[in-house]
């Protein structure tokens, strides 16, 4: 309980810092620290699956993305601080925010007892999926359509991002080409870390059926390792015109969708799995899905095409 009190105070403190910091870079570092602490809270709330996702995606990848953006914007961000809104607007904003917080606090204090829960239903039906991790079972079976749509959202975000490229760069590789590291320190770090990271990613993905973990967490680590390799200058990002890249991006959703459609024929509904093959089918979906999600996440961090396409 002492731990929870420390953690709660810390999270709010770091959040205040993220909001109040004058320097945007400092605010971003604060946000990374914030994500880490939120991951600890998820462990305390008995949601290790979410903790893994928050640590990898909410803190890690988002942090890397925002760090890069804050540096690129650099001076303009400092200039914009002069354009603070007037006192009246600040007061109104504070009032609205306090009211929203107060409403949520009332909500938390008035939560029904006993709480409504779907856990018994999940427990009663989990055997049919052949999985032992209830969260993976929900993601891949009961709410599979959510997961399918989510992957589509990721792809759409990537298409939206690519379409921001200026005409003459269209089809080129995303991000700037990083030169190989002159001191060799970064190359060394990347070379040692890459195999370890890939091993951890496979481990997290693989235990997802029986223990906390799964395709999103594994995919995020894969993506982070790929970005690390490009940052160290070990690899360049592939041009977005490349056909193999595009196939990799749609392989996961396509397999997912195809098996979903096949569900009509073999189990009587979209995305229904026949009882005997549920686990096998989920695995067949998960492997290409993980690769597609990893590629999409990495390209979302890399940004729109910025290198001249080779024609």
């Amino acid at each position, binding site marked *: 309980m002492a731990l929870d009190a420390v953690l709660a105070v810390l999270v709010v403190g770091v959040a205040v810092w993220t909001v109040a910091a004058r*320097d945007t870079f400092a605010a971003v570092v604060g946000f990374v620290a914030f994500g880490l602490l939120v991951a600890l809270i998820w462990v305390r709330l008995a949601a290790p699956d979410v903790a893994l996702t928050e640590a990898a995606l909410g803190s890690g990848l988002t942090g890397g993305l925002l760090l890069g953006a804050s540096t690129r914007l650099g001076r303009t961000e400092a200039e914009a601080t002069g354009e603070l809104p007037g006192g009246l607007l600040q007061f109104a904003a504070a009032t609205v925010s306090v009211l929203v917080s107060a409403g949520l606090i009332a909500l938390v204090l008035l939560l029904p007892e006993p709480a409504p829960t779907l856990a018994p239903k999940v427990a009663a039906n989990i055997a049919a999926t052949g999985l032992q991790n209830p969260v993976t079972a929900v993601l891949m079976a009961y709410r599979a359509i959510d997961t399918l749509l989510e992957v589509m959202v990721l792809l759409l975000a990537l298409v939206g991002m690519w379409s921001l490229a200026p005409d003459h760069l269209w089809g080129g590789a995303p991000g700037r080409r990083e030169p190989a590291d002159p*001191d060799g*320190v*970064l190359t*060394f*770090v990347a070379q*040692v*870390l890459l195999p*370890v990271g890939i091993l951890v990613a496979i481990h997290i993905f693989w235990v997802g059926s029986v223990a906390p973990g799964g395709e999103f967490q594994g995919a995020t680590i894969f993506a982070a390792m790929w970005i690390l390799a490009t940052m160290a200058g070990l690899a360049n990002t592939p041009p977005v015109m490349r056909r193999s890249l595009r196939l990799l991006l749609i392989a996961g959703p396509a397999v997912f969708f195809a098996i979903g459609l096949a569900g009509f024929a073999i189990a009587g509904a979209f995305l229904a799995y026949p009882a005997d093959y549920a686990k096998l089918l989920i695995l067949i979906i998960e492997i290409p899905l993980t690769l597609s999600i990893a590629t999409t996440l990495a390209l979302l961090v890399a940004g729109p095409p910025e290198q001249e396409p080779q024609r």
Partner: protein
Amino acid sequence: MSLALDALTFLAVAAGGFFFLAGTVGLLRFPDTLSRLHALTKADNLGLGLIVLGLLFQMEDPFAALKLVAVWLLTLLAGGAVTQLIAHAALGGRSAGVTT
């Protein structure tokens, strides 16, 4: 036997906590970036190392123990190399006038 193991865990974890304290004090009190970096690596390597050591005495499953050691090695290796990167950046940045 279990009592002896508990005592070892107690000692190692307490010592680890002490090094975290030392690292924080160093980070706050030392005058310049490079000596602060030094303090940080002490906390990283020793503090976490001792806590991992302490927890190893409680492990029953060898695979779980291996994973703990892996976490420590990863922080050790990464921490060392990254410290070097930051040191390069701090020195290079200063000569170019980048301090903010």
